[in-house]
Structure formats: C-alpha cells, structure tokens
C-alpha cells in the first residue's frame, strides 16, 4: 500500500488491534474519521483515553469497574453469603438481566484450557481461595459454560469449595423455552432427562 505519511499509517495500524478488523477495514475507518467525522474522532480519542485511565478490575469480583469495588460488590443490600462464579463479564450482565439473583459474583475471565495456556492463576483462583478463607460465603453457584472445559473448571472449583465446607451448586441443564424436543441436541436432551423434576 502506498504510504500517506507516518501518522496515517500509524492510525491504520492502531485500528487493526480491534477484533475482526483487517487492513482494508482499518483504512476505511481511518479515512472516514479524518475526512468526514473529525468530531467523532475527537470524542473517540477522549473516551478511549478516559476509559483506559479510569477503568480497572474490581478487587473482589474482577469485573471491569471505575471504582476500587464495583457497584455490586459495594452494595450492602446484596447477599454476601452467595457467590456466583462466571466465565465472562458479559455473563454477569446476562444473569443480572434475566434473574432475581441478589448475591455477589466472581469473574474468572475464561476457563481452564491447557492448549491456550490458561491455568488456575490466569483465572484468579488464588484470589478466589482468599475469598473462601474469609468465611462469609455459604454457597457458591457455578455458572461456567456447559462445555467440557467449563465443566472441568467447575469441578476443580467445587473441590476447592468443598474442602472449606461451602455448599456448591451448579446451574441446571435443560431444554430452552419454546424449544422442540425433536431439534434439541442429544447431549442436552439426555441431561434434561436425567435431571427431571417432580411437579
């Protein structure tokens, strides 16, 4: 590609750090900002700078937040005896929107995956052990994804919790609302069948 000067090249290169953005898209974004929307570019630059300066991980649950403790962890009305352990920050938002859960969270930021080099330390297990040791938590709810790696992670954490005598529960597996049995995959169906409830 013909160069238009170091600043433009640098900006194009910088846009490429975004997921799914290749050289062509980066070039399109750069030209759009410089030619058509300099105000937008200014706002983007400021918002990005501000976010990078202010936002950090919550010291307790590891979700992204502007303060030392996130709004949920610092809310005294929430039940500190329950801890819901999830893989991603987006899972916290999904659970908050869908349920009436009023306990606290812990975000692992992934699952155990040797091939990706993700071990207990990357998942904040030492921090989780410290939380268990505080003795306030009575129940942990394992809400890792129902994949093989998610299950392995859940199993590992449940063993840690049981050694501290903390009651451990796991999200149920089942058929989605409005689903049709015929189209549900066999794994889900067999889980749902073995975990049936009396009504």
């Amino acid at each position: 590609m013909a160069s238009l000067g170091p600043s433009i090249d640098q900006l194009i290169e910088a846009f490429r750090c975004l997921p799914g953005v290749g050289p062509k898209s980066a070039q399109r974004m750069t030209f759009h900002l410089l030619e058509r929307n300099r105000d937008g570019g200014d706002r983007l630059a400021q918002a990005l700078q501000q976010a990078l300066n202010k936002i950090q991980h919550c010291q307790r649950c590891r979700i992204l937040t502007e303060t030392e403790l996130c709004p949920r962890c610092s809310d005294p009305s929430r039940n500190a005896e329950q801890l819901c352990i999830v893989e991603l920050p987006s899972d916290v938002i999904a659970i908050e929107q869908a349920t009436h859960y009023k306990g606290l969270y812990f975000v692992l930021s992934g699952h155990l995956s040797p091939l990706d080099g993700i071990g207990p330390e990357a998942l904040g297990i030492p921090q989780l052990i410290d939380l268990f040791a505080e003795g306030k938590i009575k129940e942990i709810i394992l809400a890792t994804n129902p994949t093989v790696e998610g299950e392995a992670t859940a199993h590992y954490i449940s063993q840690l919790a049981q050694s501290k005598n903390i009651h451990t529960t796991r999200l149920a597996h089942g058929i989605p609302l409005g689903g049709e049995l015929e189209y549900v995959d066999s794994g889900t169906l067999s889980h749902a069948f073995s975990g049936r409830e009396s009504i």
Partner: protein
Amino acid sequence: MNIKLCPAFILHQRPYRENSLLLDIFSEQFGRISLVAKGSKQNKRGQSGLLQLYQPLLLSWYGQKELCTLTACEADGPRFILKAESALCGLYLNELLVRFLPITEIDSSRLFNNYKQALDALQSANHNEIILRLFEKYLLNYLGYALVLDHEVETGQLIDDQQRYYYQPDSGLYRWRQGLSLPSISGRSLQHLIDEQGFDKTSLNEIKHVMRTVINFYLGGKELQSRQLFGQLQQYSAK
C-alpha cells in the same frame, strides 16, 4: 477436496469472529485438520451443542489448503462423559495430539481407535495413569518413534527383570550407571510396558518418568501446558 461424513473428534476449539469457531479436529482417515465452523456459535439447529470435545462426530468439509470449511456435522454415538480428573486427562491427550500430529492428510485409523478406546476407558475412570501411558506409547509408535524396550542397544542383550536401565531418546536402552541424570527403570517395569499389563505403583512411576523424558525430547524442550496445569491444580488443592 470435498469430504463427506468422516468420523472425527474435536481436539480444541476457539472462537473466531462474531459467532464462528476454529476447530482443531482429529479425523479417522485424514489425521489432524483445522476447520472453520461458520456461524456455529448461534446455530438454530443446536450445532454448537454437538461441537464439543470427546463427542464422536461425523464431519463433512471442503477446502484445499490448511484451513478447510465445515459443511455438516452429525453425532456418531453418545458423548464420552469425562468427569473430574478424567476430564483433565482427556485435555492432556488432546494436547499431545495437537502438539505431535502435523496437519497433513494421512490415514490415522489405528491411532484414532487408540484415542477412542482411551476416552472410553477414561470414562469409567479407573487406572487413568495406565491409560495415559499406553496412549503415549501408541502415539510414539504411530509417529515412527517407537520405543525399543526388549533389549539393550549396545550389546543386544535381552532385558533382565532384576537390572536397571535408562532410555536415551533417539537411541535406545542402556544399562544404568551411577551418576546419570536420566531416570532409571527396572527390567520388570519395562516388561510391564511391553506386555501392557501387570502394572503396579512402582512400575507406573518409573514408566511415567521415562515417557516424560522421551516426549520432552521430541517436543524440543517446550513444556506441555496440561502437565503444568496438573501441578498447579495440586498445589492449590493442597492449600
């Protein structure tokens, strides 16, 4: 190349773009292959529920180069349910395959069956260590690095139950001498590994260290992540 419904397992998957997946698969007739499964994360037919580790699959794909495109997938029997420690052992097997198998088209039906049997055995979760050691042996055989265990390489003498030996990767079995850094193994343990039966705690431990030396040698010094993971997990469980 257009493949229709070939038996395969997924070794590793990672997200790709918005809702696609990159799969590392191990297929019966074509060895290890990388596939992209487009739109699989939000598939209405529940495909992502099927694209899981340890699930016997029938996969169809097309493509010429290193990365092919998945076109269809079906279950080829129920999933092997590996729980607790077995799940981690399964991840170890997968890492071995990903690290050792090149992405080329080769018929791998024998190793494929070994893998399937290993998963089946891990499912019932007894003697996990034996399952792992035997799979390591089969894998080395398959790769052409088969261990010569029944005689000394220098003298050609058959092994003796009472003697101690060491295994020099790429060369063979030697009589053990004081002051060597390589792990030693008794003739008795070697016989267990040859017969694939009769294992006990001592022989398993000796075989483990020999296998580890050989595998590390062929990996060129890069440590296996799942082995480190085992270590870290035990370390935290002990706290």
